[in-house]
């Protein structure tokens, strides 16, 4: 049904992803991944998180380098603004996940992408986190993501691309659905 005869070059190795999908069907244990992060308080609301390794395919892996993320709060919160706010990291994560998904789905559907820009906005009523009103939720009261996409495809095919990427997105699922969270502590 596709009109494209050229192969799209979005730089996603879909063959490898599809191969992994086949292989992991018969190796359910190898499909279990654990993602990790550590974080250390710096000062005030400034915090530094690091991501170094993860577990998957039955073994430990190291990223090519250790990634560091500075987070802080803005000056309107009487903070020093040494980094993005933690909730903004959630938006970064969502944008990263959805956009990667769009590229992968486009590659699979042989749609050539030229540019993919996402604008994200999330509302929050800080009466929740300040404990002013117990009926107000701490987290986002909603997230709006808008994609502006230039690609060799119809508007409808682009809409389908974006919809399919949400269907397959881990971070979309994490923010859209309840997740059991356990937080413990120890004295060092």
């Amino acid at each position, binding site marked *: 049904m596709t009109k494209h005869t050229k192969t799209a070059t979005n730089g996603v190795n879909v063959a490898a992803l599809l191969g992994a999908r086949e292989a992991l069907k018969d190796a359910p244990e190898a499909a279990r991944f654990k993602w990790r992060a550590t974080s250390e308080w710096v000062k005030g609301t400034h915090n530094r998180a690091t991501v170094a390794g993860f577990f998957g395919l039955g073994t430990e892996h190291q990223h090519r380098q250790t990634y560091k993320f500075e987070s802080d709060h803005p000056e309107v919160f009487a903070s020093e603004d040494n980094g993005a706010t933690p909730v903004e990291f959630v938006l970064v994560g969502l944008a990263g996940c959805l956009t990667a998904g769009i590229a992968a789905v486009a590659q699979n559907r042989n749609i050539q992408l030229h540019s993919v820009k996402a604008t994200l906005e999330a509302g929050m009523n800080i009466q929740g986190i300040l404990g002013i009103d117990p009926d107000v939720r701490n987290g986002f009261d909603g997230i709006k993501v808008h994609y502006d996409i230039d690609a060799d495809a119809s508007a409808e095919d682009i809409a389908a691309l974006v919809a399919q990427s949400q269907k397959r997105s881990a971070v979309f699922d994490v*923010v859209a*659905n309840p997740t059991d969270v356990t937080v413990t502590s120890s004295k060092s």
Partner: protein
Amino acid sequence: MSESASRGIAGTVDVVVIGAGHSGLAMSYLLGQCSLRHVVLERGEVANSWRTERWDSLRLLTPNWMTRLPGYPYRGDDPDGYMSAGQAADFISNYGTYTSAPVLTRTTVTRVAQSRHGFRVETSRGDWLCQAVVLATGAFNKPVIPRLAEAMPANVEQLSAHTYRNPRQLAPGGVLVVGASATGLQLAQEIQLSGRPVTLAVGEHVRLPRVYRGRDIQWWMLATGVLDQHIDDVDDPDRARRVPSPQLVGTSDRATLDLNVLQGQGVKIVGRLMGIRDSVAQFSGSLRNVCALADLKMNRLLAWIDQWAEANTPSGIGPTERFVPTLVGETSQLELKLGEDIRTVLWATGSKPDFSWLDLPIFDRKGDLKHSRGVADVPGVYVLGLPYLRRRKSSFIHGAEDDVRELSTHIADYFDRSTSQIKSRLRSVAI
């Protein structure tokens, strides 16, 4: 002596067909044409599932003209109508009479195992020995209910589409219907109209108009070849087999039933039910996306139909149409108090077959029957009527014919081969 060896033998046949629904009866008819000796074992009466496992108001989603079995078309005077469950049961029973199917009713199969020369089919009324077994026990015997049902507070009544009969069964007060396929939509509408406020939890679903360009959507799906699409020709067979039933209802006014219609009648729609915590149901924030996906897919199908219509110019069709996108409110509700707002939860979350009595090495890691287009992994075992077994129409009544024809040919070959093997073995003994 093992228990089974001590059991009485009721008979020996070539093939035992288990289940006298339309699939089993159609297979019986064609086995008869291949002169294979067989028996059809049925735990209840013929068409048992239409008599005992359907809600009161159910009507088929497929129009009467489409309801046909091998050698047996619909002959009534309402080809565009939709049969009630009782009428479907009668249609199937009449077919059994018409084909003189060798059915033993009130005979429950309790175990099927390999025996020295084939299979031993143990039943509540004696055992059968045979060379081949056809599993025609239905694809929808057991409700699939998500694990989180266990977290439901005790003051909430739970029903499934298998135990629901009509709204009078339900306590007054709010009802949460989980699942938005044909079953969920039909029951949500019926319960809402009975005066109980309904909230419908919507996951991935398939939206279709009942009538498109003046013809039943099933007519288009058949004409354009969608229903005949072969499992070998789809990208992802596993996913194709999991596609939920389309949002349709069979009523005399041939009305469309979709989420917009329900919302117009006061049903509230929420996302997929994802959790229950402290008596609060939590819904997914993916509602907008699942609705957008369903709208996109519907429009893609309609565009495909239009394209086909242009090339094939069927007579008497109406102009092209497009439908209002699914309306999703500005903010979607993410929580609901169970027990307070909701007195009853109705699981319309799908059904699966029950093969618990099959004592054969035939299941995959997830407990699903392993088969290739109805030919099971154990030689001599066949299965019918599962969703997309061979074609998209496989689990429909009219879909049985092609599958049964092909599988009965396979069975006949299987017997030819085993007979020639026996003959050549005898020959080698003679030499």
